[in-house]
């Protein structure tokens, strides 16, 4: 299996278009993006790929984060000294962010909802001062109130500073593109369609199935692997796949 990030998927294109849209908003406005999706759709991987290109700060929210702990983690990520005068520390943070226009990504943002969203309010202080992009990633859960709505309401965001992006399960075309780019063998259409059906577009499941098919193809020196070759082979874990 080839090892690279496949950029040409619908989710990745939509995420990057959303970033460009937020970046092109009027001068002097920070832009917040709230990105959510169910587990396994590739949300973290695509965000990390973008964040690494941009040199963004990536922080994973912790259960025991306080505002000060968050600021310390941010300072360390930027290479700003964490000891000494806190006013100077915060000023250096804003300076670094502003000079470099360094985006900030917070993963597992649900953990920042405690204490009346105090951590996000502090983050907004930094991002408004430095006028940078902020991307908040969270897991969508149909049983709870949607993260995007919670953040928008709590932070009193208007539409000009806030963009919501939902990362969906992969489409069949996405799976064809990914298989075409990373596999050392070709998959017949019927096999790709079956993997799509079984995985429900959950990339974690689909990639595991791709790996199984590729191993078969390489072992039997086949250029193309078809559905008939996978008879009695478990491609995806049998579990109830959530509908779209």
């Amino acid at each position, binding site marked *: 299996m*080839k090892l*690279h990030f496949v*950029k040409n998927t619908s989710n990745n294109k939509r995420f990057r278009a959303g970033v460009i849209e937020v970046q092109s908003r009027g001068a002097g406005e920070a832009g917040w993006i709230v990105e959510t999706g169910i587990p396994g759709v590739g949300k973290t991987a695509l965000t990390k790929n973008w964040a690494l290109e941009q*040199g963004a700060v990536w922080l994973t929210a912790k259960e025991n984060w306080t505002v000060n702990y968050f600021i310390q983690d941010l300072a360390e*990520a930027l290479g700003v000294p964490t000891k000494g005068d806190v006013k100077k520390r915060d000023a250096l943070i804003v300076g670094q962010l*502003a000079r470099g226009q360094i985006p900030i990504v917070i993963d597992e943002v649900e953990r920042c909802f405690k204490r009346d969203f105090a951590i996000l309010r502090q983050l907004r202080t930094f991002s408004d001062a430095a006028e940078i992009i902020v991307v908040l990633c969270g897991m969508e859960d149909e049983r709870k109130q949607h993260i995007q709505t919670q953040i928008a309401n709590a932070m009193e965001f208007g539409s000009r500073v806030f963009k919501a992006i939902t990362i969906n399960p992969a489409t069949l075309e996405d799976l064809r593109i990914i298989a075409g780019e990373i596999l050392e063998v070709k998959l017949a259409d019927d096999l790709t369609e079956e993997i799509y059906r079984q995985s429900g577009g959950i990339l974690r499941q689909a990639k595991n199935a791709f790996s199984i098919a590729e191993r078969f193809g390489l072992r039997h020196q086949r250029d193309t692997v078809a559905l008939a070759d996978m008879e009695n082979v478990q491609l995806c874990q049998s579990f109830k796949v959530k509908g779209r």
Partner: protein
Amino acid sequence: MAWIAGDILRAAAELAGTSPAVGVELASLAEHAGLERKQASESCAVLVDLGFLDRLQPGRFQVTPAGLVALAEGSPMKSGPKGPVPKGRSRGLRQLAWRAMRMEKKFTLPELQGLICDGDEKDAYSNLQQYASFLVRAGYLIVLPKKAQGGAPTSNGHNRYLLDAAMDTGPLAPVYRKKSGEAYDPNTQKAWKLEQEARA
């Protein structure tokens, strides 16, 4: 000074002819624009970021509607960042790898490759191996005792690395100075000699 990515975008539109939606190979773009392959590859990456090109697959690109509009308007397409950038911020593979190591803390090289590579790189794994080897010798990375399973049946597995938190000095990638046999950390601006010659 002309912006060469603009030349690449024009070349992509010209080569696609009357059907701008047809993709164009990287080698054809380089030849048509009279550029080195590496220049063309880097320009394509910038144009993809700007939304003017789509990467259909590694080494094959397509002009987007936004790219066509930019060409038609004769926009003064400027490359570069949309704001000030600190000196030394790089898109090079090792800089990307360092960022990924700081992000992941614990990783294998295939995992890093899956995050930072887009398929256009030459010998990415070999480059990452050499860089990781240097970082181990310089004390930044620790090789964990248990290996990760490799994909191939005959694979010996992959080293698992841990970034030593005490050596996570900042966002700029440490470099190996081959001539002097030194490690240099641009975050602390300190250099020190490494004991053996690195292959980095």
